[in-house]
């Protein structure tokens, strides 16, 4: 008699086999275009095959949004609205004191800054990738050229997925990760002990708010053996300022 957990194991095996043979999952833009029927026939077929290999995405893409309203309790909605407002960047109060003799110059400068800012914003918007999350494969500092060449995360993402590969350090029972903030010697976050997986990588989901301070962060990989730890590699990551 086939049981539910037999199906789960077999489907997971089938998914793993098929994902070995295909590229990464389709991008969000590709999936939305597939859903709207705006891809070429070849692209449609390619995305379809990827969706079969990644049925979680197929399910999410096909799942409709509800069209009816079943409201939350008013108190909870109020709380959510307050939380939402707190996540938005605060506007600075403008200075109310402006000396008369500086008024003309200040006005001209303000206009220049405003127009310059609009131009800069427009240029930046044109080139801005429309992403919510950012996914980065880290490289050890020695292989990439040091912290000066540190990988930079997208400034508009709400979180990023950092993948830390284990390169040339296979002789350890377990591993551990630390994250150090800009200029900080002590870790701002430490993982528990992590077991090595078949793909030789660990992934860390980092909310963007965790990387609030601009500068260079360092992810440090330790090998754990016999109760001791050895620093194996450092992966630098630059967070740009606003």
């Amino acid at each position, binding site marked *: 008699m086939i049981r539910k957990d*037999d199906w789960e194991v077999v489907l997971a095996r089938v998914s793993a086999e098929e994902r070995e043979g295909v590229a990464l999952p389709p991008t969000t833009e590709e999936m*939305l275009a597939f859903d709207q029927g705006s891809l070429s026939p070849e692209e449609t077929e390619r995305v379809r095959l990827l*969706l079969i290999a990644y049925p979680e995405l197929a*399910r*999410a893409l096909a799942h409709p*949004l*509800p069209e009816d309203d079943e409201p939350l309790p008013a108190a909870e909605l109020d709380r959510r609205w307050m*939380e939402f407002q707190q996540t938005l960047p605060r506007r600075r109060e403008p200075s109310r004191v402006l000396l008369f003799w500086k008024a003309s110059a200040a006005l001209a400068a303000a206009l220049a800054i405003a127009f310059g800012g609009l131009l800069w914003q427009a240029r930046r918007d044109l080139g801005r990738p429309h992403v919510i999350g950012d996914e980065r494969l880290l490289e050890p500092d020695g292989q990439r050229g040091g912290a000066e060449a540190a990988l930079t995360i997208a400034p508009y993402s709400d979180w990023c997925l950092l993948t830390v590969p284990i390169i040339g350090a296979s002789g350890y029972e377990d591993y551990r990760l630390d994250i150090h903030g800009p200029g900080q010697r002590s870790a701002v*976050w430490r993982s*528990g002990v992590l077991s090595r997986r078949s793909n030789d990588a660990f992934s860390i989901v980092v909310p963007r708010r965790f990387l609030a301070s601009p500068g260079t962060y360092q992810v440090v990989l330790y090998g754990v053996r016999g109760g001791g730890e050895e620093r194996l590699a450092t992966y630098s990551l630059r967070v740009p300022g606003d």
Partner: protein
Amino acid sequence: MSTGGDGFEETYRKYYARVWRYYRSCRISDDESHDLAQDTFKRLLEHWSSIRGEDPWPFLKQIAKSVLLNYIRATKTQKRAATTVTLDDPEIVIDLPAPPEQTYEDREDERRRRELLHRAFRELSKGQQACLRLRLNDLSYEEIQKTLGITLDAVKSRIRDAKRQLRERLGEKS
């Protein structure tokens, strides 16, 4: 970014529950669903000036789907089988109870059963495999039809035939 006096708050209050329920219905945890709903409205606010005067729901639907796909793509599939450590819960230690001890015979029986199922599944046609996989991942017949670009009758007959062939190959009664 301002949210006052331009109808945004009204839109938020009108649609927040709907967006949150959408994420919940996609098997996202309650906390994550609220986070994703807030992200969705944050993105809506970024585009608010360009949609003023229009019905925001079509935009909101598109944004909500995009946020969900990004989330699943990154956390569930992108790095395939990588150990994922969520910074939100760095201290969580889950101490699961030990499963009941299996005998050697139980383990061998389980391994043989799964091997047989895997082989039987792989012997199905590609079309049957695709339909059955999507069905077992909880897609409705209509959703499978849309994903595979085939007729509803084709979806139903492939799944029916696949089940019949599996029963025959596994020696089970219908």
